[in-house]
């Protein structure tokens, strides 16, 4: 009994008080800052080195939907690419994830996610999500679990993961969609009643990531079903996920 009290006292308050103002440490690789003036040589080398083909040149740009934030390009870029620790990377439009030197973080942040009135009205106070891992490596899954832990405590915003798709307002997809999971994902999606939202989490779900070239994946689902929210990362930090949702819900 005594130990239990001691443990509770030592545990204290773990929840991050104001998620909106929270910062992550410098070391974290988030929104890239691109300085085109220095990319005359580095750009091509970067394009070659990028494992997921996220980099294109003329002008130098990075597709955050493909990027796994490995940081390799930074080393080869001669200062043309630098990853900041800005973790707000979510977007409701796929095109917005392509970052060039003309796009600074503030502009991206103001435009990437559009808070729609009807979404706020429908889900603003309560959003229940069904997660489906379709070839995910357990990286995104762990971070999505972490979003609900004592530190991040996403539940305080009325956003929770639920077990049954019948109880859910939307589906959160991780993984490149392995062929063996494609039918189950479709079933889960179909079981959610309208109106429903689709969230793609991580480079694999958004673009196939490292597995884009595999013949064991089947991404037809995304041809048929529009995605409402893209959350880049490998895996995305829980803050990235929570912030994107809060913006999306207009909170």
């Amino acid at each position: 009994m005594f130990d239990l009290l001691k443990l509770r006292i030592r545990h204290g308050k773990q929840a991050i008080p104001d998620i909106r103002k929270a910062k992550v440490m410098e070391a974290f690789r988030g929104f890239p800052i691109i300085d085109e003036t220095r990319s005359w040589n580095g750009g091509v080398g970067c394009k070659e080195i990028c494992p997921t083909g996220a980099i294109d040149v003329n002008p130098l740009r990075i597709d955050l939907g493909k990027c796994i934030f490995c940081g390799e390009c930074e080393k080869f870029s001669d200062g043309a690419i630098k990853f900041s620790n800005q973790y707000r990377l979510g977007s409701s439009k796929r095109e917005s994830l392509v970052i060039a030197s003309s796009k600074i973080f503030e502009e991206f942040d103001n435009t990437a996610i559009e808070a729609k009135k009807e979404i706020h009205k429908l889900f603003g106070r309560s959003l229940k999500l069904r997660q489906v891992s379709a070839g995910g490596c357990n990286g995104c899954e762990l971070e999505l679990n972490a979003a609900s832990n004592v530190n991040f405590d996403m539940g305080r915003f009325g956003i929770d993961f639920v077990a049954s798709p019948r109880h859910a307002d939307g589906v959160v997809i991780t993984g490149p969609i392995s062929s063996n999971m494609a039918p189950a994902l479709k079933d889960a999606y179909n079981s959610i009643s309208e109106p429903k939202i689709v969230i793609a989490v991580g480079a694999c779900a958004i673009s196939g990531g490292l597995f884009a070239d595999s013949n064991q994946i089947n991404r037809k689902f995304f041809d048929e079903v529009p995605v409402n929210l893209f959350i880049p990362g490998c895996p995305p930090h829980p803050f990235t996920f929570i912030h994107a949702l809060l913006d999306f819900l207009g909170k």
Partner: protein
Amino acid sequence: MSWCEIKNLQSVPLDEIPQLEYSSLKTKIIEKISEGCRVVQFFGDKLKDCVALYIVLADDEQSKLFAASTLFSEGGSFESITPEVQSFHLFEREFYEQFGIKPVGHPWLKPARKGIAGISSEENQYEFFTMEGEEVHEVGVGPIHAGIIEPGHFRFSCHGEQIYHLEIELGFQHRGVEDLFLKNKNKPEFLLNLSESITGDTVIGHAGTFARAIESLGETDVSRKSIIIRTIASELERIGIHLGDLSALAGDVAYLTGNSSFGAMRTKIINSTMAICGSRFGHSLIAVGGVNYDINKELKENISQTLNKLEEDVELAAEVLFSSSSVLARFEKTGVVSFETAKEIGLVGPAARASGVALDVRTDHPYDGFTLFPVHKLTLKSGDVFARAYIRYVEIIQSIKIIRELLESPVEGELKKPSNDLLPKRFVVSMSEGWRGEIVHAGITDEEGQLKRYKIKDPSFNNWIAVALAVRNNGISDFPLCNKSFNLSYSGFDL
């Protein structure tokens, strides 16, 4: 010479692996097994008009590995070893599935991974075991499970609440990882990232195993400094996941104090990993030839402070958790795997140690920092959920001590040395102790020094069968708890 004797990470010319007639190889395998060896790799490689099968056995006491091979013509068959040595069952099934060479007499030739090409469609239509009788019923779960967890299908045959039999069907996560290794053999950066994503909960474990295999194949040198950083990262990974598992196990028995306190401790540890390399799971830290990030003085200070606090916290939380009668009532005698069963099925990792099987690659086949700082093997006896939980606690404390020692050792030298081209026609086995247990990669290069086969074995490959056996005669409501106490990987198994 019927075996090529090697060590972990010792690459040898491919020609030195003896090629035997299968029948004599089988006799030799059984002989070695009876002397106390166990199988760590068993995989095929497609040659021009035939298939080579490579077998690697480990003598853990003497830190030796024994490799041999045999050739099969296409569509051939061989006499299954499984009836005599059960731990071969899945290796043979996988080999059959990938190359179509049939193990004759195999008692359970179920596809290793659901619906993956290689074997006839007829055999792909696998029928689950069924049970008949009054009050007998089946419960099917998955591929999609209740929580945020990877997919797999579980089918329980129950009598009332009691589980008689559990059949597990995996393969839903199959992404063609081994093929991608060969497809991208010219892109070393890609391969390193891919190895990190074999299973995203064992980033350091698999990436380290891969990097060491490639270093060995190219005789690339690494500095003492970089192996120390790698080893620190691998122990941080172990601590982080073990804390997460203790948190989840407490959650599974509705013990919320344990759930939240272990959970909060985990956050601090994985944030330490992020402070080193920018990723909470250690992405981009490991490189072929060393590491990409340093642990400077300030970081060192921070990590030791975090560990000091953690040690006190974890001891207190464990004291509370493991003395709570409501927790013990659920943990003790639940999901028992006996020592004999563990040996027979070839269990590895903390799960094996919880059943009294003293296996730990860090001690048995040391690599990286463990060549400098030997690790003492820890085991428990009861093989139940309690033991699998408690061993995690014990290992957390052990890993804290290991990291402390490593942090104190002087680290000079460069972070990353230039990596050499791979030598042609070589063979290497790279083993390591991931938090889940023994990871074994094997690599073969061709005449041009390019990877021609890269085989991966996650510890989950050994251990999934233990989940099926552990739940027998337990209540079905204890399944989530049993399952979590193993915490096996789907993606690492499915590849």
